[in-house]
């Protein structure tokens, strides 16, 4: 039965051995020699230490290509030309699905054709030695970034391979990333991963764990993201994780973003045991980007400015090519440098903005209410509480593709551009808070002369890529609101490549 309890040593060892047999490279991932390997690494590669001791937000991009030499070159480039403080290795989609055979085929194809036929680095297929080569080839500490519901073998191999930070979590790598994975099972899988990290930690190799804060990346209300982060943090702490980086994805409203990062840090520190070192990571806008590098640079600029104001421990940067596809190394490095310039120019300025406390209070109150619901649903057991709360809709994530979540919650921006909740579903939030959101959304509806509806949501989803924050109706749209057309065709961009 699912419980938020530490996995016993024997079970850890047993499961680990079984998993290592799933793919030939598992054999090399031997724990004791891995500890020795980590101990042999220079202190500069200690991810947790680097992050926790920084006095300015550290910058980290996303990056993963199939082949080892290309990945090495890519990371070196991002270090040297982008000035990244921390490096990533993003894993490909087949590995995320545990389809190691398909990943193998992709990898071989990539090696032969020289083309990037996978959208990331298939670390399981590469195996422990290749990971270590990568870790040694670059100067900065590296994190495994992926999106894998069952990342146990990936964790076994990459941690043995010298990585000291591992992204993800049972909710954050299930709900936004998959349709059919059972949440209960995913939690068990991540308990194993956290337990493994705990085992390393106990031996002095403090593995940093980073739940994925942005979730679906699309107008996620801060309170929901924070509640999920705290829950994942608690589950990880139980298993012995002692370095935790809680995440949050920019929504684009400066006051709300700063308030949310403060609330995240505050609640993280409050709810997590004292022996856990809590840090925060801010993701530059994770929703749809403008199909134009110049405008994308504007979005990145606002991300950098917000990071300078909120001072998270880490910033995950975007590239100006985010819209189009996996960025070139040049564009990726450019995103880092644009962000750096903004942070460094703003870092020493004292900029105190009004109203952050009030927004933070609202966020914290809502997040607490969601957390209480989780505890209640599990009769005090967080693990069971999570499953039950998602099942009842007491906890929910907008646009969640997963069958484990109701995805009944719909967000929309208020008249100031802050993300509010338009449709509550069964979210465990009391009427008083709901009234606040409703009032704000009514205010917007009045401004726009239209009623609250899914159309607001759709407009808001596109707003930033269309160059605005709030998806206001265009003149012609509000005229013809009842006409039944989803959007008017007048200023459509892009489109179809039809044969002729």
């Amino acid at each position, binding site marked *: 039965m699912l419980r938020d309890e530490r996995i016993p040593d024997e079970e850890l060892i047993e499961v680990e051995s079984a998993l290592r047999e799933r793919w030939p490279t598992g054999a090399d991932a031997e724990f004791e020699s891995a500890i020795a390997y980590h101990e042999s690494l220079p202190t500069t590669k200690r991810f947790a230490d680097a992050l926790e001791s920084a006095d300015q937000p550290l910058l980290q991009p996303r990056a993963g290509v199939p082949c080892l030499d290309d990945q090495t070159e890519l990371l070196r480039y991002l270090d040297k030309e982008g000035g990244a403080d921390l490096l990533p290795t993003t894993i490909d989609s087949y590995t995320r*699905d545990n389809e190691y055979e398909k990943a193998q085929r992709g990898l071989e194809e990539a090696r032969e054709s020289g083309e990037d036929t996978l959208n990331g680095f298939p670390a399981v297929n590469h195996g422990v030695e290749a990971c270590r080569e990568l870790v040694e080839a670059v100067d900065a500490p590296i994190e495994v970034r992926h999106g894998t519901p069952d990342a146990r073998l990936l964790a076994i191999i990459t941690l043995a391979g010298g990585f000291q930070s591992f992204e993800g979590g049972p909710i954050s790598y299930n709900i936004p990333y998959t349709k059919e994975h059972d949440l209960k099972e995913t939690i068990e899988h991540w308990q194993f991963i956290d337990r493994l990290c705990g085992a390393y930690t106990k031996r002095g190799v403090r593995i940093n764990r980073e739940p994925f804060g942005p979730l*679906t990346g699309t107008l996620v209300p801060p309170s929901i993201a924070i509640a999920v982060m705290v829950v994942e943090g608690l589950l990880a702490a139980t298993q012995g994780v002692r370095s935790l980086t809680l995440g949050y994805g920019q929504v684009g409203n400066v006051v709300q973003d700063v308030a949310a990062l403060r609330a995240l840090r505050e609640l993280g520190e409050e709810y997590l045991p004292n022996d856990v070192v809590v840090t925060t990571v801010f993701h530059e806008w994770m929703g749809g980007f403008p199909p134009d590098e110049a405008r994308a640079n504007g979005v990145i600029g606002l991300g950098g400015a917000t990071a300078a104001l909120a001072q998270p421990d880490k910033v995950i940067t975007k590239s100006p090519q985010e819209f*189009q596809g996996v960025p070139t190394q040049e564009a990726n490095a450019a995103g880092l440098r644009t962000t750096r310039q903004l942070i460094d120019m703003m870092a020493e300025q004292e900029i105190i903005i009004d109203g952050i406390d009030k927004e933070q209070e609202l966020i914290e109150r809502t997040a607490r209410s969601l957390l209480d619901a989780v505890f209640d649903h599990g009769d005090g057991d967080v693990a069971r509480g999570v499953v039950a709360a998602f099942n009842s809709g007491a906890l929910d994530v907008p646009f969640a*593709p997963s069958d484990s979540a109701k995805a009944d919650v719909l967000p929309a921006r208020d008249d100031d551009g802050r993300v509010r909740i338009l449709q509550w579903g069964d979210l465990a939030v009391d009427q008083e808070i709901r009234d606040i959101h409703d009032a704000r959304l009514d205010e917007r509806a009045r401004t726009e002369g239209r009623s609250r509806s899914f159309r607001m949501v*759709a407009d808001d989803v596109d707003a930033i890529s269309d160059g605005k924050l709030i998806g206001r109706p265009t003149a012609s749209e509000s005229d013809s609101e009842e006409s*039944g057309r989803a959007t008017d*065709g007048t200023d459509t961009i*892009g*489109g*179809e490549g039809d044969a002729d």
Partner: protein
Amino acid sequence: MVEILGYDTHMGQTVILGVIGSDAHVVGITILEQALSAAGFDVKNLGVQTSKDEFVSAAQKHDTGAVLVSSLYGHARQDCQGLHKQLADTECDAVTYIGGNLSVGQDDWDDTREHFRELGFNRVFDAETDPSAVVSALERDLDHRTAEPETQRVRMNS
């Protein structure tokens, strides 16, 4: 548009919609589903991470006018391999569209479009596609099946 054409729904014109492969990007199809439904189409949204088989059997099950395949994560080429053969085997004559981010990286759109045309898709849409362009294309392809869809350019950005 609805008024102009003089009827309210596109009855019996089921549109199958889904994200292929192990891709979980759901936002695009959520928006598309809403837009197509609002325009009167009977939409069956298969959701994300839909296999070829699921697309084919859904197409078989209904009087399917169109199969809309979405892919964002960069593996569309691999994921769509053989889809049209399977559809043909079940004698499905629905028009097929594909849309989203159809290749890994910063690829050339002309090549990409050509590739998916060759796989058998009737129309190929990039990620800048506005839902209204999809509605318009479907209205043409489903209401005027006899017209040559290939000769019509339904670029909305005029």
